[in-house]
């Protein structure tokens, strides 16, 4: 079931994210060295690359968890400059899922999901609760609604974290290595939820090491090396027959690897 075949993804030419010549440095260290990306509404993009390639930093720039050094980022036609209203607006519209889940340990599962819609969006508590319960049903954790996060497995925590982000009704979801902290047997349940979110037409940017997810769900794969985009394209092409020798090496493709070595 590929999203690219989903009608909702076709003919949607509207732009969700536009990055133009984005640079980001931490002190002397330049992590992003001029990134240009355009992501359409409803598109699912996988960011891959070895650690230190800048993929997580790139993701974190999109919702301003990191401030870019130079360049331009536009999210849903809102310019992400130093304007505080814009930044606050974008943070509400962009959901984020972290490698370490980052659930609030002093709140129950349900409270975790409800806190932001109630206090940030100032929505009616009963309505929010109704939606939160629906979301919990969707991620298959309705029976855990009154549990504290520490009582849940990593996979369950991450599913709650996805529900928490969805509760804000975001226009865009960012995933920062959502399965990297999970035991292998728990990866599947999180990927299933992510696939479901993708199939509902959500625009998603996913930093991942799960090549299966990239292949099955993503519309586009972007491979980063050393703060730059090395190669990008449809996963079928890029993941099986990469042009770049670095990508071939990253994917561990045997014959291409030999090419690199020789």
């Amino acid at each position, binding site marked *: 079931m590929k999203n690219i075949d989903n009608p909702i993804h076709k003919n949607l030419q509207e732009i969700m994210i536009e990055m133009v010549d984005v640079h980001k440095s931490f002190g002397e260290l330049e992590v992003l060295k001029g990134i240009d990306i355009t992501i359409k509404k409803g598109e699912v993009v996988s960011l891959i690359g070895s650690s230190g390639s800048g993929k997580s930093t790139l993701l974190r720039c999109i919702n301003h968890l990191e401030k870019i050094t130079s360049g331009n980022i536009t999210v849903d036609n809102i310019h992400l400059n130093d304007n505080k209203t814009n930044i606050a607006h974008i*943070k509400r519209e962009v*959901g984020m899922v*972290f490698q370490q889940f*980052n659930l609030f*340990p*002093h709140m129950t599962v349900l409270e975790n999901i409800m806190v932001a819609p109630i*206090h940030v969006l100032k929505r009616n508590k009963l309505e929010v609760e109704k939606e939160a319960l629906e979301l919990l049903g969707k991620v298959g954790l309705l029976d855990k609604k009154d549990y*504290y996060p*520490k009582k849940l497995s990593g996979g369950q925590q991450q599913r709650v974290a996805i529900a928490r982000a969805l509760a804000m009704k975001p226009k865009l979801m960012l995933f920062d290595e959502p399965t990297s902290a999970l035991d292998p047997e728990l990866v599947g349940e999180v990927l299933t939820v992510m696939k479901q979110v993708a199939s509902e037409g959500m625009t998603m940017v996913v930093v991942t090491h799960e090549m299966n997810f990239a292949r099955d769900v993503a519309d586009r794969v972007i491979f980063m090396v050393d703060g730059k985009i090395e190669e990008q394209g449809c996963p079928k092409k890029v993941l099986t027959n990469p042009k770049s020798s670095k990508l071939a090496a990253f994917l561990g493709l045997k014959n291409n690897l030999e090419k690199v070595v020789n």
Partner: protein
Amino acid sequence: MLDFSLVTDFLPFMVKASWITLKLTLFSTIFGLILGLFVALMKISKVKIIRLIADFYLWIIRGTPMLVQLFLIYYGLPQVGIELSPMVAAVIALGINSAAYIAEIYRGGIMSISKGQIEAAESLGMSYFLQMRKVILPQALRISLPALGNQAIMMLKDSSLASLVTVSELLMVSQRYAASNYAFIEFYLVAAGFYLVMTTFFTFILNRVERRMSVSDM
């Protein structure tokens, strides 16, 4: 030699004085907890001048004896036209003093909250104020609780300093009866016993609260 029967006549008065000690401790602790929170938030502010004001406060309060501060407030302030009752003066002195230590306890608690918690709150669109109120402080307070409890027990003992500005708390009253009956050992031993009972009670309550807090989370 020792004649504790003397003390029994005065026990009701000592119980009443203990009540004043408890009130003094309670008010000063509440004052200290609130002021300490403000100082802690100032200490972690991104604005340098605000941090400097907090540092200045901590420097003065921690660098001078509490008794000197108390005398300045009770005996000194009337000179510039501010007259405070002994009780109010003692609450202020004990409060501003413990606030300095409480601020550092809070700050430690706040610093121990992982960056991921703040990022999660931020990515949900929470303002700084909301992050503090809903995510950071509730966790920081729980972490700080044991240290805050110690601080409250110290406060109970420090409240005896108020006897020096005529608050008729436990030590002041014991002193009076001890002198008038020439029975120092008896009255001071009983006073010490009273203090011990109160600190033990405090510790007991705090342990219960801590246990309850830790059941639910983290």
